């Protein structure tokens, strides 16, 4: 694979890896909280988390720019100076993928029969024990599906990333940005190749996530050989 593709591709995966990690941690926490804790104003919080689904990525990017830019508490007090680095690209991607992860996780957790968690409690399980031995394994498919969807969305992020990380080749220029660049330079051969790669990755991710949903629905799940052992 030629260098003009390899470098953005590598950077894309690097950004996606960090974005996925952020998605997993924050998406899981938010999804479980929204499914289980009914606090006043939960609808407002939920709506705010879902906003990136409908807002133009440039708006999300603008908010991030303000939050991370000069004079912001994050920069001045926490010393978080990541604008125009791949870290900012990862943060922007995670934010845009978050709604998908939260929605899926919340639905999976809300679907669990609370009697199962109560059963674990009467059997001596602590609250973290209940979460890691009952809730999470039972919500596994929904969590994974949400994570893959969110990660795929993060991989394809363009607008917000451009706002906070720019399009610096070799530093912040991910595949979607490189495609835009190639088209600007009328390098259609390069653009075609990168477009096909993007489409392939997105297809596999979506297909896999959909498959998780399919398996989840008809009740009893399939068991793997390892589990039978």
């Amino acid at each position: 694979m030629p260098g003009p593709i390899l470098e953005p591709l590598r950077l894309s995966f690097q950004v996606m890896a960090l974005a996925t990690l952020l998605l997993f941690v924050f998406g899981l926490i938010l999804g479980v909280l929204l499914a289980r804790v009914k606090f006043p104003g939960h609808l407002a919080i939920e709506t705010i988390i879902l906003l990136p689904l409908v807002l133009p990525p440039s708006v999300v990017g603008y908010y991030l720019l303000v939050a991370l830019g000069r004079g912001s508490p994050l920069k001045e007090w926490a010393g978080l100076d990541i604008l125009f680095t791949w870290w900012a690209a990862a943060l922007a991607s995670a934010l845009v993928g978050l709604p998908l992860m939260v929605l899926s996780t919340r639905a999976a957790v809300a679907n669990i029969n609370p009697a199962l968690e109560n059963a674990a409690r009467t059997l001596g399980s602590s609250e973290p024990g209940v979460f890691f031995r009952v809730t999470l394994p039972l919500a596994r498919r929904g969590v994974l599906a949400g994570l893959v969807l969110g990660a795929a969305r993060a991989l394809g992020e363009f607008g917000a990333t451009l706002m906070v990380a720019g399009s610096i080749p070799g530093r912040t220029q991910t595949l979607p940005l490189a495609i835009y660049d190639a088209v600007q330079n009328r390098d259609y051969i390069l653009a075609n190749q990168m477009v096909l790669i993007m489409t392939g990755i997105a297809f596999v991710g979506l297909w896999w996530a959909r498959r998780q949903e399919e398996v989840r629905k008809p009740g009893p799940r399939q068991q793997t050989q390892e589990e039978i052992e």
Partner: protein
Amino acid sequence: MSLGGIPNLLVDIEVQRNGFNLRVALDVQSEVMVLFGPSGSGKSTTLQAIAGLITPRKGTIVFNGETLFQRGRAVPLVNAPARKRRIGYVFQDYALFPHLTALRNIAFPLWKRPGAGSRARELLEQMGLSGLGNSYPHELSGGQQQRVAIARALAAEPQVLLLDEPFSALDLETRRRVRGEVRKVLHETHIPVVLVTHDREEVLALGDRVAVIDQGHIVAHGAPLALLGHPPRERVARLTGMKNIIRLQVLGADPAEGILHCGRGEFLLEVPLSDVHAGQEVMVGFRADDVLLATTKPVGLSARNAIPGKVVSVQSIGTVYEVIMDCSGIYLMSHITRRAVEELGVKPQVGLWAVVKTASCFILHE
């Protein structure tokens, strides 16, 4: 502070839930205490409160002198979390973990303890489930799931065992078959057991004692046979499935014979002597199972009450038929078998005699 080493669970709680008030006091030794009542009477809520899954408004829960829960004016709040109470709970739908095999379900409370695997296997065999350890809950029959649920609860070595309608998820046949096995297991545990049901048969088959609960209050308690056979009050009689409850007037007493003559219009009934006086209105109850039907007025029969009447309806209810008779304007209910329905030619408008032993009737206090 165990009293002579006899396990003892004391419950005295008030729970407020969705505008519903529950006030329950129980004293359970190492025996099977059955909480009997209609659905919505507060049976499951009581179990959940004992297990620590919901918090009562006030009251105490004490096991062997150890306070598990205490809340009220002028006492410090004690509320041990469910996981620390060591109270086993068998849920109505068993709540087996669908992602774990039968064996892993049973081993769940033994997590990270040495010998967990062999202990779980031991329980599996004890419950007659050998060979099913690698099956997932959805691959097991209802009866097998129930046994896994009981084994799982026992694996945690509970001090008290609670069972919420343990047979309701099973079909009638399985229910009767497994009842004996469950009874044996429960009695072998030698711990206080509280079992919730709305089935009379289960009370009689499993209970050492029974408490009848209605609209959040315990309305009667005692030995199953005595209480269900001779419920003290009309409300308890209705709750325990007494189908014939009629209002009659006391016509006269015959102390020498030990009987009372009661009646209304042409309807006459002899009931055992009771502390009532002539002219008084009383409620008399007897079970539909205790009413015999005959095509002619029986002769040479010890039963003293033979009442002529007309069949109103015949209806199958599970294993027996329920016949409703109109006897001089008073409706009587009788349970007879399918064979009896055929042989007697029981159908609406047919004239029959309803026969009731005097000893089967008793006066209910309102």
